[in-house]
């Protein structure tokens, strides 16, 4: 699998580290609900189709990238930068 880093260009996935499901949302810090925290840590949709996932370009520019990947065909639909430097990405 090859991913297109928004800064470095197309690279082998071995340069990247998987950082989990990009659609998981952490409950607010004051949330007392065990169920909400449990769902954030453990519950995943596991779709057959488009899945958004976080990858970090650890062996390159170290940017976090949201990759939209089709879990059936392995097609990479998009690779978008996230984080405070996403706006200044060349």
């Amino acid at each position: 699998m090859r991913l297109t880093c928004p800064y470095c260009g197309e690279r082998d996935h071995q340069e990247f580290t998987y950082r989990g499901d990009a659609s998981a949302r952490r409950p607010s810090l004051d949330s007392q609900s065990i169920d909400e925290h449990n769902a954030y840590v453990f519950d995943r949709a596991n779709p057959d189709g488009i899945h958004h996932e976080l990858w970090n370009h650890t062996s390159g520019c170290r940017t976090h990238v949201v990759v939209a990947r089709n879990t059936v065909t392995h097609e990479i639909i998009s690779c978008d930068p996230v984080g405070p430097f996403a706006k200044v990405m060349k």
Partner: protein
Amino acid sequence: MVDQPEMLSPLHDLAMPRAASDTAGVELGERLCASLVQVQAWPNTVGRVEKALSTLKGEITIMPSGPGRWLIEDESEGLEDRLRKKIPSAVGAVTGLTHGRVVISISGRKSEWVLASGIAIDFSTDAFPVGETRLTHHHEIGLTVHRTGETSFDLYVFTSFSRAFWQWIERAGEEVGYSVT
């Protein structure tokens, strides 16, 4: 005042100059940097750091190494102090890496071929023009690759991994013949 001890390359006994047994496809070499500094801007100060870097004088090589981040080599010492004066911490972070990297150089007609045998990036001049920089790895050893010419590259390797990397590049060079300068 006691004199500073001379810096010893971690490759001092490995990278001994030697001629190729036959014709050399690549020439290998190593050097230590006089000054190597990383500068990281904050998300809202990227333009200000770029401006500060554009005023640097001397034998400077500026290598972009990430969004708002640069690796800068100077052929003379003291670059870290000069950059700290230009870039206060409110504008960016200046980190001295002079002792943290060894530069392994490879040149010759087969240099692209030898590098491509272990590093998964496109080394053709169309994809990787002269003067540009690529960040990648070789078997988990992080590398900054700077193309200094059509057939010459400087590889900035972590000091502590440089012996392992050197041993690989020698083995890879055996296929086409190598000499060490």
